[in-house]
C-alpha cells in the first residue's frame, strides 16, 4: 500500500513524496494508536488492589526507541533527494510547505505520550460517570470523619498569647506581627485553644467535630465545606439515621469492591458515634496492610488514642479506606483533569518546532554551514553564560542574545539586498532560523526581569502588577510566539528561496 501511495505521490506531488509525509503521518498516527491502547491498559483500575498494571515506563521507553528508529529511517529516505539544493523548479511557498511537513511529522512522532495519557485517562473515566463518581466520592469523603479524618487546628488564644490584654485591646505584639516581615518568629510563641466551637457549643480539639473530611478533586472546595458542615450538623443534632445511612453507603462501597473490613454497621457506629461530646471514639485503622497504597499510612502527630496503651493509635477495627480513596481519587482526577494537557502540548509544539528548524536549516544550507553555526552557537552561549553568571544577571544573557540576533539579521539582510555573494550568510541563516524561535521569549524575559527588579524599590512584599500579568501570561506568550513563528517562517522561506539564487562566491 505504501509503495503505491508513494509512487502516486512521486508522480503527482514530488514534495510530499520526498518528505515521505504520508507514510510518516500514518506511522505517527499508528504510534499514537498503539500508545493510546497502552495508556488504556495503564488506566485499568483494580478496585480490590489485587493486581497492579504499571507499564508506563516500559511504554515510554518503547515509544522513545521506536521514535528514534523511525526518525533515523525517515531521515535516510528524506535526505536521498534535495530538489532545493539541486536548483529544481520550486514554487515560492514550497519551502514553507516542506517545513510544515517536517513539523507535523516530528510533532506526531514526539507527542505519543499525549495519546498514552489520554488513553489512560479515558479508561479511568470509563469506570463511572462524572455524576456517579462525584456521588461515590462524597460518601468516601464524608465517612472519613468516622474513620481517620485529620484533626484541624484550633484558634489562637489571643489573651494567653499576649496579643490582646484583658480588656480586648491589641497589644504592641500584634502590631509588630502585622508589620514585621519576620512574623514567623512570633508565630512560634502563639498559644492555641484546646477546644473548638460549633454552633456555639464547645467540643474538644480531638473530637469528631474537629475532624476534616477527605478532599477529592471532583468535589469543589465549596462543596467540601458544605459537606463537612452537613456531617457535623448530623452529629450536633444527633441525626443517627443520616449517620447510619452514610455508614451503610460506605460499607456498600467496601463490599462492592470486595475490600476488607472487620466493621459492621453496628460495630462501626458503636465505636465512633459517642454522642454528645464525640471525643471518646475509637480510631479505625484506614488500611488492612500498611503501605499498600501511597496514602495508606497517615499518622497525625498530635493525635492520641484513647485506647491504652497510649502509644497505639488505632483500635482493633480496620477498613480498607486507603485503597478506596486511592482508586476513587484516580477516577476523580481523570474526570477533573483535561484530556489534553495544554502545557504539555506547548512543550511538544516547541520540541517539534526546534527539531524541524534544525532539520530545515540543514536542508536549505550546507552541512558545513550547519555544523559551523551549531558550534558557534554553543561557544557564544558558553561565553555569554559565563559573563552572565559572573554578573549574576540573566538580563545580560538575554540582552546579549538579542543583540546578536539583531546583528546577524542585519548582516543577512545586507547580503540578501545586495544579492552579490553569499559569503558566510549560510552560517548566519542557520543561526537566524534557530534564534528566531527565541526572539519573543527573550524580549519577554527582558521585560519580566525589568519589572521584577522594580519590586525591590517598594519593599519585600511588593510585586508589580506588570510582573504578575507577565507571569500569568507565560503560556499565552509561548502560544503567540508559536503563531508568530509560523508567520516568520512563511516569510523567511520565501526569502531563503531567493537567497539560494545568490552566487556562492
Amino acid at each position, binding site marked *: 500500500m505504501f509503495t503505491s501511495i508513494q509512487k*502516486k505521490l*512521486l*508522480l*503527482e506531488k*514530488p514534495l510530499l*513524496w*520526498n518528505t515521505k509525509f504520508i507514510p510518516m503521518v500514518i506511522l505517527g498516527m499508528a504510534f499514537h494508536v498503539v500508545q493510546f491502547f497502552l495508556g488504556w491498559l495503564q488506566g485499568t483500575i483494580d478496585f480490590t488492589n489485587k493486581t497492579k498494571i504499571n507499564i508506563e515506563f516500559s511504554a515510554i521507553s518503547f515509544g522513545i526507541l521506536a521514535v528514534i528508529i523511525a526518525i533515523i529511517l525517515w531521515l535516510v529516505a528524506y*535526505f*536521498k*533527494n534535495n*530538489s532545493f539544493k539541486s*536548483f*529544481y*523548479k*520550486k514554487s515560492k511557498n514550497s519551502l514553507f510547505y516542506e517545513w510544515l511537513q517536517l513539523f507535523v511529522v516530528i510533532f506526531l512522532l514526539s507527542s505519543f505520550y499525549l495519546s498514552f495519557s489520554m488513553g489512560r485517562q479515558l479508561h479511568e473515566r470509563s469506570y463511572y460517570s462524572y455524576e456517579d463518581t462525584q456521588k461515590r466520592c462524597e460518601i468516601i469523603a464524608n465517612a472519613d470523619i468516622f474513620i481517620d479524618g485529620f484533626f484541624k487546628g484550633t484558634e489562637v488564644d489571643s489573651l494567653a498569647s499576649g496579643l490582646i490584654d484583658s480588656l480586648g485591646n491589641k497589644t504592641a505584639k500584634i502590631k509588630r506581627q502585622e508589620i514585621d516581615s519576620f512574623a514567623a518568629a512570633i508565630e512560634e510563641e502563639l498559644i492555641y485553644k484546646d477546644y473548638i466551637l460549633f454552633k456555639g457549643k464547645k467540643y474538644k480539639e480531638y473530637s469528631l467535630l474537629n475532624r476534616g473530611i477527605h478532599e477529592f478533586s471532583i468535589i469543589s472546595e465549596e462543596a467540601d465545606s458544605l459537606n463537612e458542615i452537613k456531617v457535623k450538623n448530623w452529629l450536633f443534632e444527633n441525626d443517627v439515621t443520616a449517620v447510619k445511612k452514610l455508614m451503610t453507603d460506605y460499607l456498600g462501597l467496601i463490599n462492592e469492591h470486595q475490600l476488607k473490613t472487620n466493621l459492621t454497621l453496628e460495630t462501626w457506629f458503636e465505636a465512633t458515634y459517642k454522642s454528645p461530646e464525640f471525643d471518646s471514639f475509637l480510631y479505625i485503622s484506614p488500611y488492612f496492610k500498611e503501605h499498600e497504597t501511597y496514602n495508606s499510612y497517615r499518622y497525625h502527630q498530635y493525635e492520641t488514642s484513647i485506647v491504652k496503651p497510649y502509644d497505639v493509635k488505632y483500635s482493633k477495627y480496620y477498613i480498607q479506606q486507603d485503597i478506596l480513596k486511592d482508586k476513587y481519587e484516580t477516577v476523580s482526577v481523570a474526570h477533573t483533569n483535561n484530556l489534553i494537557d495544554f502545557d504539555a502540548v506547548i512543550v511538544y509544539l516547541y520540541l517539534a518546532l526546534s527539531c524541524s528548524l534544525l532539520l530545515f536549516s540543514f536542508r536549505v544550507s550546507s552541512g558545513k554551514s550547519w555544523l559551523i553555526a551549531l558550534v558557534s552557537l554553543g561557544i557564544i552561549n558558553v561565553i555569554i553564560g559565563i559573563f552572565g553568571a559572573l554578573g549574576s544577571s540573566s538580563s545580560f544573557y538575554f540582552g546579549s542574545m538579542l543583540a546578536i540576533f539583531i546583528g546577524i539579521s542585519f548582516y543577512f539582510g545586507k547580503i540578501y539586498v545586495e*544579492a*552579490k*555573494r553569499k559569503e558566510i550568510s549560510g552560517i548566519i541563516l542557520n543561526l537566524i532560523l534557530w534564534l528566531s524561535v527565541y526572539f519573543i521569549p527573550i524580549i519577554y524575559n527582558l521585560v519580566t526581569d525589568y519589572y521584577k527588579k522594580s519590586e525591590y524599590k517598594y519593599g519585600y512584599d511588593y510585586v508589580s502588577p506588570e510582573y504578575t500579568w507577565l507571569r500569568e501570561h507565560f503560556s499565552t506568550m509561548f502560544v503567540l510566539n508559536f503563531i508568530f513563528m509560523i508567520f516568520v517562517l512563511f516569510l523567511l522561506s520565501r526569502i531563503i*528561496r*531567493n537567497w*539560494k*539564487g*545568490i*552566487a*556562492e*562566491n
Partner: protein
Amino acid sequence: MTEFEKQFQEVQALLEFKDYNQVIKRLIDFTLDSESIHYYQKTNDFLDWHDTNEQNEVEKVTQIKQLIDELYAFLSQKTCHEHQTFISVQNLQKIYNSSFGLGPINLDIKSGEIIGLVGENGNGKTTLLRSLCGELHPSSGTISYHFEYEDAFDLRTKLVYIPQRTATWRGSMYENLEFTASCYGYLPEENNLIINLIITRLGLRKYRKHYWNDLSSGYKMRFELARMLLRKPKILLIDEPLANLDILAQQTVLDDFRTIANSAFRPIAIVLSSQQLYEVEKTSNQVVFLKRGVQKNLLTENESHSNCVIEFESSLTISELNQKLLQLQLLSLEQNGGTYIATFPGNFGINDFLKLVITEAIPIQYFRNISNSTRRFFVN
C-alpha cells in the same frame, strides 16, 4: 527548407543505410519534439517491442517508417524555433586572488549552439562555467540573460550546470529521474514515458534499474545528462563531459549534444569544457580558448596570424625534415612531444604540403592542418 525538414531528410538517409541505432535516436528526438503523450506512448510501445524483436528487420523498418511518417505529418504543422541569443557576456572578469584571474571574456551564446571551452588545466574553464551558471559573481563586467525569469532562484533553475565530479545519487536511477520530471511539472501520465524516451536516447535503457555505485563514470555522466534534459534548461553547462569516456563514447556523446542542442523545436545552448580539442572543435559552433584566464578567439587570432600551420608525425629527425621542408618557404619547424609543427606563409595550402611529402617520400603517420584550430594555441 526548414531545419526540421533537413533533419527529416537526414533520418531518411540514415534509414536507407540501415543505421538503425541512429535512426532510433532521431526518432526519439522527433517524439520528444512532438510534446504529445500520444506519440510518447507510440514510440515507447515500439521501443518495448524492439527490446525483444531487434532481429526482425522487416517489421522494424516498417514500424520505424510508419512512426516517422506520422511524426513528420504532425511536426510539419509546428513552427520551428528561431535561434536567439540566450546569454551575452561583456568584459567578464573574475579575480580570485593576485595569482589568478579570469577574463576579460566577451561572448554571445545562442540557442542551438555548442560552445567549446578549451585550455590547459587551471586556466579558468570551470570558473567561466560557474560564472555563467550564476554560481560565481563577476568581479567586474556583466552577464546578461535574454530570457524570462522571475528571480535569482528561477534563473538558476534554467542554467543547468553539471560539474566534473557529479554528486552521488541516492536511491535508484529511475526513481531519481521520476522525481526530477515530477518537480518540473511533467504530467503523471507522461512522466515515465518521457523518462523512458530520454534514457533510451542516451543509451541507458539497460541501466534504468541500476544504482549509482553499479555504474561506470561514463554512465554516471549520461544519467546526469538525462536528469538535466528533463529540466528543460535554456543552457546546459558541462564541465569535462568527455573526461571519463572512451573515444567512441566521446564521439557518441558529442553527436548527442549536437542533435539535442540543434533541435528544431526545443533548441538549447550547450557550453562544454574539454581537453579533447579535436572532438570538441568538430562539434562546436564556437571554440573559446583560455590561456591563464585570458580568452583567445580563433577568428581574431587567425586574422593576425594567417599562416598555414600543419601538425604531423614522422619518423625523420627534425634536421632531416627541416632540410626537405625548406623547399617550401618553411617559416618554422618545432618539435612538440612526438609531433612536429610546421609553419608556412598564409598563401601556402595543405595540398602543397602533401605534394612535397609524396615527392620527397617523407614518411608520415599522421598529419592535420591546425591553421583554423585552437590546437595552435596549445603548441605555440
